[in-house]
């Protein structure tokens, strides 16, 4: 299992495009926001965007990267090949999840560092709550990614599904309009990334996140992964 995980990590390091969108682009995006002098609700733009950018990271690896990767393993009959070895096909998916989660956390740390060092955005005042919300946001998106991988007939359609889902997910996270209308915000609280940004924002400000967004993220994680496990097509 260790070598399998290391191998998956190596393979991800050989995907420059995925690393750009998932690791480098979020930091660049935050830096661009940080250069602006605008404020929203009395907060500088970099501080407003930090939770949004962290939500973005989990979408890139969870909803866009993971399903294409898993679907391509099925398409190339790699899952089937592994089914004939003592390792079995489930472990390689476990390894991919472990690698994705690790990279999401590393990218999140990178974004926090850019915000703190470049633009004096304070580190989260409730670090444990922040870490918890980050992990839950990541598992929710990885769960959704698994569900896409379970249902998509091939890597292309998995990629298309990930791209289509990106827009509503990130709309409610506030990527395009950080200040959503009250109605949109209310709906957004019940979408995974609306909930994620809300929880992250609360933890940044110093409070333990409200239970509701955490419940939304936990429910998304469980419902998606359980459905994916039931419906998964191995070939």
């Amino acid at each position, binding site marked *: 299992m260790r*070598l399998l995980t290391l191998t998956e990590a190596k*393979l991800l390091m050989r995907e420059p495009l995925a690393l750009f969108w998932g690791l480098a682009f979020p930091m660049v995006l935050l830096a661009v926001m940080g250069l602006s002098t605008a404020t929203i609700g009395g907060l500088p733009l970099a501080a407003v965007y930090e939770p949004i950018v962290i939500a973005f990271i989990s979408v890139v690896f969870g909803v866009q990267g993971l399903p294409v990767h898993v679907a391509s393993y099925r398409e190339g009959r790699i899952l089937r090949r592994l089914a004939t070895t003592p390792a079995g096909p489930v472990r390689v998916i476990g390894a991919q999840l472990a690698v994705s989660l690790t990279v999401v956390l590393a990218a999140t740390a990178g974004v926090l560092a850019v915000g703190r060092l470049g633009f004096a955005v304070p580190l989260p005042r409730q670090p444990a709550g922040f870490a918890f919300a980050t992990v839950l946001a990541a598992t929710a998106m990885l769960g959704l990614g698994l569900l896409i991988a379970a249902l998509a007939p091939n890597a292309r359609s998995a990629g298309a599904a990930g791209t289509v889902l990106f827009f509503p997910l990130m709309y409610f996270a506030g990527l395009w309009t950080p200040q959503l209308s009250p109605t949109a915000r209310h709906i957004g609280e019940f979408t995974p990334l609306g909930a994620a940004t809300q929880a992250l924002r609360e933890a940044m400000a110093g409070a333990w996140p409200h239970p509701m967004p955490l419940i939304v993220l936990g429910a998304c994680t469980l419902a998606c992964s359980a459905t994916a496990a039931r419906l998964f097509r191995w070939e």
Partner: protein
Amino acid sequence: MTAIEVERLRKRYGAKVAVDDVSFTVAEGEIFGLLGRNGAGKSSTVDCIAGLRVPDQGRIRVAGLDPRRDQRELRHLLGVQLQESALPAKLTVAEAMRLFASFYRSPADIAGLLDMLDLTEKRNTRYRGLSGGQKQRLSIALALIGRPRIAILDELTTGLDPVARRDTWAFVEDIRNQGVTIMLVTHFMTEAERLCDRVAILDHGRLAAIGTPAQLARPTLEDTFVALTAGRP
């Protein structure tokens, strides 16, 4: 001692019967050929033996194990080379060998296996950079990395040039001489004649003939094969 026992195997997909009442046994140390046209039921039979599919009826034993019930143990004893199965495009030959070796209790020596299959020079090449023949040889190496007692080689020499094909044949005889039982799935009659101790010919999911290549040569194995399987598409 019997390596593989297949008794009255039936497998259907919806209304289509892929394997219909097929029985045969493979003795330990034998090279056994499974012949048939495309769609004759070879791959379905192999899938059931490898535990990848559940038979609708019949009984299968591989080294005395039930492929479904004793799956864990079977995966250590049975090496499988599947047709059209790829590897991650950016994985190198050596990485793939090390990874697959890590799955088994007592893997074969990687350098030795690469050497035997003439892949040593390519050890740092990524999978997508390999030629068809090199990919094929790598997939044979991966099927043997766990030092299996039984190996199933599906479409072993498809895509290989004549020289590489002959090298591969010599290699298959080598591993048999080391005591490995081999089930060869093929539609090359020369390959079956040259390598196999016995062959079974499948036609439309049914066992059409079984015996040594010499017994089935009327006057050649290929004539027999065509006579038994031509006609209905």
